[in-house]
């Protein structure tokens, strides 16, 4: 109940400030760019292939949806720190954290409420990008199942990076710092799989395992692998756990 109250207040705050509109607009703009060129490329290639006399139609999922999901995933990487950076940093700076922490609600309710609000805003962004998919459905016959799985992957990976961003936001009262560190950590987590590409020792494989991107791979192919689900769930819980511990330490250090 308190979680919903906090979540509602955060969402309201996103849409009262320019943050929500900025993030959604940038998302739509860049996502639209990728979609347009992905589509143009596909149209060109399919015309070429039909002129070559190949009768097999090209798979829309394989040629448009999958690359698009990967591209959009990178865009999310840039925008997610902008969503999370203010969550706690702003409350700490303005002193409203004292109101939350002296009210009869638990730290976990505060953390969950704020994270859910961030996930909800991210969900709205995903809904906006579904417009592109709607166009595909209007003019083609993509398979909806792998597409839905891809979106589930986007949501899970987003939830994971949002949890980490929320944690970073509790560590400082400066939003810019929270945003910068949040972005750096997200980016590193994204490219960690490079480590395992150059070597295959245990250490390198373990480090590579923590790459959020490598776990997204199977989702973008339309596969739900339980080990990826476990990975994302663990990362989300870890992020939220760190957030609530860090919030508790605010009490000790304040």
């Amino acid at each position, binding site marked *: 109940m308190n979680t919903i109250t906090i979540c509602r207040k955060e969402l309201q705050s996103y849409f*009262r*400030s320019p943050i929500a509109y900025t993030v959604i607009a940038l998302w739509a703009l860049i996502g639209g760019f990728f979609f347009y060129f992905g589509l143009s490329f596909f149209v060109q290639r399919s015309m070429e292939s039909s002129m070559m006399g190949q009768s097999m139609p090209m798979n829309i999922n394989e040629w448009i949806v999958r690359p698009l999901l990967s591209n959009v995933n990178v865009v999310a990487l840039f925008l997610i720190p902008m969503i999370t950076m203010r969550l706690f940093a702003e409350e700490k700076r303005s002193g*409203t954290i*004292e*109101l939350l922490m*002296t*009210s009869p609600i638990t730290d976990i309710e505060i953390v969950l409420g704020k994270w859910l609000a961030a996930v909800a805003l991210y969900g709205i962004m995903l809904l906006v990008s579904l417009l592109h998919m709607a166009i595909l459905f209007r003019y083609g016959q993509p398979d909806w199942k792998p597409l839905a799985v891809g979106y589930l992957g986007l949501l899970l990976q987003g939830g994971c990076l949002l949890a980490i961003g929320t944690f970073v936001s509790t560590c400082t009262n400066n939003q810019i710092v929270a945003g910068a560190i949040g972005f750096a950590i997200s980016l590193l987590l994204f490219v960690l799989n490079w480590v395992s590409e150059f070597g295959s020792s245990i250490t390198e494989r373990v480090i590579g395992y923590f790459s959020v991107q490598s776990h997204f791979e199977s989702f973008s192919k339309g596969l739900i692998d339980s080990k990826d689900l476990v990975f994302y769930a663990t990362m989300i819980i870890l992020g939220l756990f760190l957030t609530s511990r860090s919030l508790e330490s605010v009490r000790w250090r*304040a």
Partner: protein
Amino acid sequence: MIKVEGLTKRYARNVAVDNISFEIEKGQVVGFLGPNGAGKTTTMRILTCFMPPTAGTASIAGFDVQQNPMEVKKRIGYLPETPPLYPDMEVVEYLDFVGRIKGIPAADLAKRINEVSEKCAVGDVRTKLIGKLSKGYRQRVGLAQAILHNPDVLILDEPTSGLDPHQIIETRDLIKGLAGDHTIILSTHILPEVEQICEKVIIIAKGKVVATDSVENLTSRLRGSEQVAVEVIATDAAAVQLKLEQVAGVSRVMHKDTKDDRLHFTVESLEGRHIRPGIARAVIESGWNLNELHGMALSLEEIFLELTASAKPPEGAKPQQEAAIAQEAESK
């Protein structure tokens, strides 16, 4: 209602609150008096469960702040030094949010918000954005937030700081109006504020309780000998000084300075004597014009000097003299 025992808060290097103990009865209005950095805010933050103490215990209505923080939080209303407001919310939205996280049942919430916004005189800005409100209004919204869930205990950290004189009076009246129903602790570094609002004073300095007393006792103790500033329009300073020294109850007269024909004196009384009427009469009857006559307020620093001095009787007189000298230097 509030019981504090051996409370200590230590930061990395310095001790903010050092082994303080006090007790506050239900319905009392208590002033927490001390200079900046004395540990007032830290004590309040411990009482509101914002931060845990390093040692000692504090309990509110029988609930310990560390064992039972939820029960304590339900029973306190807290106004930090900067009101905890969200500038992008309307006043009503804000109070609605606070009401929900304070656990007011949804059915009563609208009624409570109406009552409180009337009590705190924020009814006319209900639908305004908090970010657009003046400082006085923000303070009142902050107070409304603190009393919204009708808490047993109200903790107000410097409720009048940064307000203009008109707003200060309004806020003080508001707090006085709340006094009957709630146990109130308010911190301040302004002495007259305590005299006006509070029944009991806890004075702290450098993290320690220096004195706990009722306001009457404390002021009479401090005002044992009164200092009065007198401004007389006359030409013969020596004659005026002589005349003032002859007034009943006067122990000492100091000629401070002369501007044109306006002569400034500081007059000190003997213990427990009211000398202002006598001075006025003496000046008028001698045919001089009395331009100004007022009691000199003791500054906080002097109070601490006096209080710490009274703890060490043999050297009692010395710091008092120092205080007088310091005051003299200050007025020059």
